[in-house]
Structure formats: structure tokens, C-alpha cells
């Protein structure tokens, strides 16, 4: 046995240098008396052990358009996010793979006055790509870039709670209109990289920021090239980082299998098994915070009756949708928009699993024998939304509910259908905290409260929990809110979708972040060549 252990130890070292394959390693581990699962874990640990510097990492992304710009206020998606924030910029804080928030450009942060005032202390000696020191004033202007009446920023609504911010030596002091214990999470948003100040305004045009890579070239809709920032405050492994926008999924897959790129996001789920068989290709799959929902306007009939809402929630066969439309790459929802990995998440009981009899009984409670409702859908909501709606129609029919599926045009879906039609398919990227998600789409004053759901007790709890600093009390409050939302709210949460990506086995990585796709959009600084 000890011989096997010795062999395994050697293999562990070799795995660290990428000289032993996962399969060989697991076989050795099993011979030494470990289970296959333990062997897998040991391999993963060993293979990640020794990141090393070098190489040009090439990334193929499904997003990217000629209208993209370097302005962080309007970063629309993973292309600009990964380039302009993950690779070339930093926010005050960042999310780690465990789903916790960590200091990034800030070295530490402290709340005071019931989390109404937050003091962020800047990391010392951090410089911009042009060599200038990062000052507290730069942070203030970078935040002001998103605030004020003329702002076009996607981060405007999340920063609306800031009533005052000022620089004080190495500190930045945020004053909020009400306490928010989760404010450090908001400071990790990808729209808020810190930019240098030129003439009193944030200079985003030059692309100079603080991140692990310096922008060399950016062609909107085509790609970008970056080189390592040698002065970055942390280790960065790749020498250079290139991004290519490849909107066509077949072209993206071909680019990976033929070795043109090392990583692609948003794999084609239908052909995933074929890609898996290609030599030297690995698939990574992360259940993120993103979820597919069907918000109903609870202010109009028949959705204004909570029994109708419950009937519809029990009439959807989520598992069938996950299995048939998404080939199992997701987790069926339970009408709770807070992903299971998020702090304070609960699984509301009783679970809303598919139960036509229960659905029928709730219909009866609403005084109805049958129900006919329109459901608007389009693949613009999320890829697969039309198929999901048709499966829903089938499962609802068994409960005496006639879903009239209306296929809307993809073009202008978010303008003309979402929040306009009483019931439609929608998508949320998800937020890293319960408070952030709820105040984005469930609070009575939220701009995107797409179910128009206004529950007094829920909103009371939301405000109270936000400023509560006692973790135990917060957990209780968030549990109650999630239960209320699931029982009473107007959102059918279909499922949490997985981020399915593929990469060449020439690159290695640690645990993957779930807050955004592409390893939390921070792949450039977190991966390395094995």
C-alpha cells in the first residue's frame, strides 16, 4: 500500500505541473484505497496547486457588438464586463468563489451608524496603468459618473441610495439614505470600476484603469487585446489576454476545438456531449444566480387572486423544462428568486413541485373550474423560452388551465412585452445578495418590479433587514420574506440556469465564481496555463 501512496504523492506533484491526466490520477488514487470522488477532489487540488506565469490566453465570447464602448455606465454584457472591468479594472470590492465579498481596491471597509455610513479605506500604493496613484477623489468621481440626473448608467438605480460621498485622506465615506448591511456587495458591481480623474471627470475614454491587464487595443464588436500590468497588487499569471467576439455558437465551438481560442462561454447545450468527446476539451458548469422567471401582473385579473397565482405555480413541470429544454443544465426553481448558494437563502415549504391536483384545488378556491390565460414568450427573454412555454402549456392542461402561448417578436421584447403584457417570460441575471435581488425586482418602489407586487409586510421586512446588523435576526427576516414571496408573489421562478463553458485543458483554474459567467468575469486574473 505504501508504494501506492508514494506513487500517488509523485502523481500529485506531476499533476501540479499538468503532467498527469485526471483519469490516470483517479485510478492511482483508487488503487491506493481512496474512493473515486476523493481521487477527483485530490486531483483538482493538486492540479491547481502551482499556478505559473506565462502565455497568451485567448477567450471566445458570445457577446460583443459594434456599439460597445469603454464607458462602464453602459457595459451591456460579458464582453465589455470581462474586458473593461474583470481584466482592466477593479471595483472597491469583489466577490470570491464562495459567494462572499472581499476587499479589492479598498483594503478594508467599516460600517457605522446602523450601516448608514460606510468608510472604505483604499489599498496603499495601487496605481493606474499610467503610473498615477489611485486617490480617494478618483473613487468619488468614478461613483459620481453613475449618479445624478443626466446619468445613463445601468448602475444608477443601485447607487440611488447614496446621499453623499466624500474623500477623506485615504478613505471614501459613503452616506446612505437608510442603513444597508450589504453595501460592500453593491460596491462589487461590474459597472463601477475605478477610473482616473481628468479635469474633474472620470476618464473612461482612455481605458486606463487599475486592473491586472492594460488595454492595448479594443475594436468594438470584434475583439480586444490586453497585456499584463506588472504593477498590479496581486499575482497575474497570463502574459497577455485576448478576447474575440464570436456570436455564432457553432463558430465559437469550432474556434475552441481547432485551438484558435482557449475558452468559450455559452456552449451549445444540444451538442455539448460531442464537444466533451473532443480531445483536450473540458467543460465547466456553474449554477449561478441567474434565473428564468414568468412575472404576472398581480394588479390585473385573473392574477390579482393569490389562489390563481398558486394554481399556476403548481401547474408548471419545472423538472421537465430543465430536462427537456436545457438538457439538465440547470436547477428547477421553487418560486424563490434567491439562489440556494446565496447567504440567507431558504427553500420555501411546501415546495411548489408539479401537482395538477393541487393546482386544480387552488383554482376551485378561486371559484374557477377552468382558466384560460395568455402567456407571452420569445427567445429574447432567454434562449429556450418558447419551448419552455409550450411545455408549461402541456403540464398546465392537466390541471384544467388553458395556457394560450403567444410568440412575441424578439426585437424590442424588453420594451414592448416585458412589464407591458400581463404575463410573460423573463430573465434575471441574479444578484449576490437577497437584499439586492429583492430591492431590484420585488420592492414596491423598484423600477423593475415586474409583477407590480406590493406586499406591505414584505416591504417592511426588506427595509428592516437591510439595516439590521445582527446576522441571526437578518437570517430570520430574509427567510420570512422568501416564504412570503414564494406564497404570495407574482413570479413563477422556473429554474436557475447553469453557466456552461468549455476550455482547453492547457489552462487551469481554481474554484469558479457563481456571481457572473466567465468565472465572475474575472477569468483573466484567476486562470493560468497548466
Amino acid at each position, binding site marked *: 500500500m505504501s508504494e501506492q501512496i508514494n506513487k500517488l504523492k509523485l502523481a500529485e506533484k506531476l499533476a501540479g505541473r499538468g503532467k498527469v491526466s485526471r483519469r490516470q490520477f483517479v485510478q492511482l488514487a483508487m488503487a491506493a484505497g481512496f474512493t473515486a470522488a476523493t481521487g477527483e477532489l485530490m486531483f483538482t487540488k493538486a492540479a491547481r496547486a502551482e499556478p505559473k506565469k506565462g502565455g497568451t490566453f485567448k477567450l471566445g465570447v458570445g457577446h460583443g*457588438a*459594434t*456599439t*460597445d*464602448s*469603454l*464607458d462602464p455606465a*453602459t457595459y*451591456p454584457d460579458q464582453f465589455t464586463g470581462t474586458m473593461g472591468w474583470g481584466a482592466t479594472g477593479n471595483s472597491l470590492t469583489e466577490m470570491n468563489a464562495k459567494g462572499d465579498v472581499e476587499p479589492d481596491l479598498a483594503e478594508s471597509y467599516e460600517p457605522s451608524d446602523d450601516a448608514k455610513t460606510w468608510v472604505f479605506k483604499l489599498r496603499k500604493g495601487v496605481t493606474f496603468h499610467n503610473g498615477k496613484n489611485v486617490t480617494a477623489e478618483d473613487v468619488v468621481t468614478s461613483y459620481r459618473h453613475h449618479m445624478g*440626473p*443626466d*446619468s*445613463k*448608467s*445601468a448602475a*444608477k*438605480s443601485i447607487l440611488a441610495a447614496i446621499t453623499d460621498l466624500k474623500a477623506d485622506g485615504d478613505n471614501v465615506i459613503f452616506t446612505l439614505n437608510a442603513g444597508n448591511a450589504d453595501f460592500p456587495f453593491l460596491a462589487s458591481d461590474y459597472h463601477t470600476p475605478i477610473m482616473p480623474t481628468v479635469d474633474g471627470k472620470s476618464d473612461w*475614454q482612455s481605458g486606463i484603469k487599475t486592473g491586472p491587464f492594460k488595454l492595448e487595443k479594443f*475594436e*468594438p*464588436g*470584434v*475583439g480586444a487585446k490586453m497585456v499584463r500590468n506588472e504593477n498590479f497588487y496581486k499575482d497575474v499569471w497570463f502574459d497577455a489576454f485576448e478576447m*474575440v*467576439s*464570436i*456570436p*455564432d455558437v*457553432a*463558430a465559437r465551438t*469550432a*474556434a475552441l*476545438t*481547432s*485551438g*484558435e*481560442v482557449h475558452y468559450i462561454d455559452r456552449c451549445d447545450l444540444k451538442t455539448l456531449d460531442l464537444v466533451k468527446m*473532443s*480531445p483536450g476539451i473540458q467543460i465547466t458548469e456553474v449554477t449561478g444566480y441567474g434565473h428564468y422567471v414568468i412575472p404576472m401582473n398581480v394588479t390585473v385579473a385573473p392574477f390579482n387572486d393569490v389562489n390563481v397565482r398558486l394554481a399556476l405555480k403548481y401547474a408548471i413541470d419545472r423538472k421537465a423544462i430543465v430536462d427537456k429544454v436545457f438538457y439538465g443544465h440547470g436547477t428547477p426553481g421553487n418560486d424563490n428568486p434567491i439562489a440556494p448558494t446565496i447567504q440567507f437563502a431558504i427553500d420555501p415549504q411546501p415546495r411548489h413541485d408539479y401537482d395538477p391536483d393541487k393546482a386544480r384545488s387552488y383554482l376551485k378556491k378561486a371559484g374557477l373550474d377552468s382558466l384560460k390565460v395568455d402567456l407571452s414568450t420569445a427567445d429574447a427573454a432567454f434562449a429556450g423560452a418558447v419551448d419552455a412555454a409550450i411545455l408549461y402549456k402541456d403540464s398546465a392542461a392537466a390541471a384544467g388551465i388553458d395556457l394560450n402561448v403567444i410568440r412575441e*417578436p424578439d*426585437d*424590442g421584447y*424588453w*420594451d*414592448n412585452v*416585458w412589464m407591458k403584457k400581463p404575463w410573460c417570460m*423573463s*430573465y434575471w441575471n441574479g444578484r449576490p445578495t437577497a437584499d439586492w435581488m429583492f430591492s431590484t425586482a420585488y420592492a414596491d418602489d423598484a*423600477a*423593475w418590479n415586474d409583477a407590480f407586487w406590493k406586499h406591505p409586510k414584505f416591504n417592511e421586512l426588506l427595509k428592516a433587514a437591510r439595516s439590521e446588523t445582527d446576522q441571526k435576526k437578518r437570517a430570520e427576516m430574509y427567510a420570512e420574506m422568501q416564504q412570503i414571496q414564494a406564497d404570495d408573489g407574482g413570479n413563477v421562478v422556473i429554474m436557475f440556469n447553469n453557466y456552461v463553458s468549455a476550455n482547453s485543458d492547457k489552462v487551469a483554474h481554481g474554484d469558479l465564481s457563481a456571481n457572473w459567467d466567465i468565472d465572475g468575469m474575472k477569468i483573466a486574473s484567476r486562470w493560468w496555463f497548466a
Partner: protein
Amino acid sequence: MNAVLKIVLQRLGLGLITLFVVSLIIFVAILMLPGGFAEAILGQAATPETVAAFNKEIGLDQPAYIRYFNWIAGVLQGDFGTSYASRVGYRREVAEMLAPRAFNTLFLAGMTAIIAVPLSVGLGLLAALYRNTLFDRAINMVSLVSISFPEFFIAYIAIVLLASPAVFNILPSLAKVDEDAGLWERIYRCSLPAITMTLVIVAHMMRMTRAAIINVLASPYVEMARLKGAKPWQIIVRHALPNAWAPIVTVVALNLAYLIVGVVVVEFVFTYPGMGKQMVDAVTARDVPVVQACALVFAATYIILNLIADVLGIVTNPRLMHPK
């Protein structure tokens, strides 16, 4: 020669009117699309305030006709305006955005034309020479098969055969070219799209060449040539071809125009940064100035290539060149 000059001027005049009408139609068509630039860019994250701020900055708060007149006044002075993607301190001139893309499109079209035009005219001549033989049938069949498949299908087949580890991994599946890429690098990167497009357009030109030649071969003067003992290939190249140029040139011109304006699918499959992809992006984002400029370039391409075809048709036909 005067007749030709007159036709050129006349056509150019009509072309200008066509361009004006095209720009008007495109402008109105985009107005009728749901949503505007701000909504398209902000997507789900749009709120009324951010949309209003956006519209104000890019001037979309002005009435549509004023925007159109401003635009057309600019174009008449050679200024295609700025993209809506511009921001304060970050001007994106439409002309500057379009120039590298137009160059890429022209490069790919030119490269394809250099392969496809001689190939199809040559094959057409051979098919006419050996008409109704096995050779004729074979190349007809192959080219008809290749034109019958949608171009993306041919493109994917080409990738599987030539750019994946499955068969041969010798050509790049990504045709992404840099502005500073050298000529050979460009040609190498563009090889798969060029092959794909060649397969798509060869059939049309080849069959037209063959038909035009065979048509002429029925004329009495060809019979005369045959009687005097000219060899079959001499008859075709020296006697039949000069009288068959007009229809061939027309078809070649149409196909060249297609190479410039109709290759958006091929651009997508090979991720080639050409004008087609730019126009699709711009339409999706309702970036009107860019859409308008692309439409003008595409329309002008058609007008000019058709004009060239007509002029060549006249120049190669003495009866039209010297009318009584």
C-alpha cells in the same frame, strides 16, 4: 464613345436619386421598428430616466424629419455623422468606423472574385466545348449542388473538413483579421470564407457562360468558322466568346455585388469583421447613422457594378457601340 458617356452620366444621375430614395426608405423603416437606440443598448435595465438622458445626449429628442434633414445635409457635404455609440469625449465617426470594415469586405470579395470569376468562366467555356459529355454533366451537377445548399451549411461543412481536428486542421476557422495583419496572414485567414463563397457563386456564372456560348454557337457565322476548318476551342474563344460577353458580364457583376452586400451569413460563421456584420449590429442597436451609411454603400455598390456591366456590354458589342 459619346453614347457611352451619355449613358454613364444618365445612370449616375439616376443612381443619386436611387440612393436618396434608399436612404429615405431605410430611415422610415428603422423609425417603424420597436424601440430606439437607448432601449436597445440598455435592454432589460432601461428605466424611463436613463432612456430620456440617453436620447437627449444623442439628439433623439428632436423630431424625426429634423434628424433626417440634418443627416442628409451632412452627407451632401461628405460628413456621414457620428454613431449613436459616441459619448462625450468619445466621438465615433461613421466614416472611420466603416472604413476598416469596408476594406475587409472588399478584400474578401476581391479575393473570392479572383478565384471565382476565372474559374467559372473557364469552366463555362469548357462545359460549352464539351457540352453534353460526362464532364459537362459532372461540373454542372457539382456546381448546382453547391449553389443549392444554404451558404452557412457549406461554411460549416468546410469548417468540419478543413478546420477541425476531426479531419484536417489546416485552415483557420476564425477569419478574424487585424488591421495590421500582413497580406499573407490575411489571405490565410480569409481562405475558408473565400472557398465557401466561391462554391456559392460559381454555378451561376459558369452556367450563364455556358448558355451564352452555346446560344451563339447556333449562329450562321459559327457554322462558317467550322466550315473553314477552325478548331472547336478556337471557335469558342475567338468567335463565340466576343459575342457572348454581355450576358456573362452582367451575371459576373451581379455576383460581385452579392459578394459585397450579401455575405453577412458567411461573415457571422467565420467571425469576419466585414460590413454585413456591422450593419446587423447597427440595426439591432438602432444605430441609425451607421445603418444609413451601410445602406448607401451597399446601394452604391449595386448601382456602380450594374453600370459597369452595362457599359462593358455596350463596349463589347459594336452594334450598340456604333448605332446607325
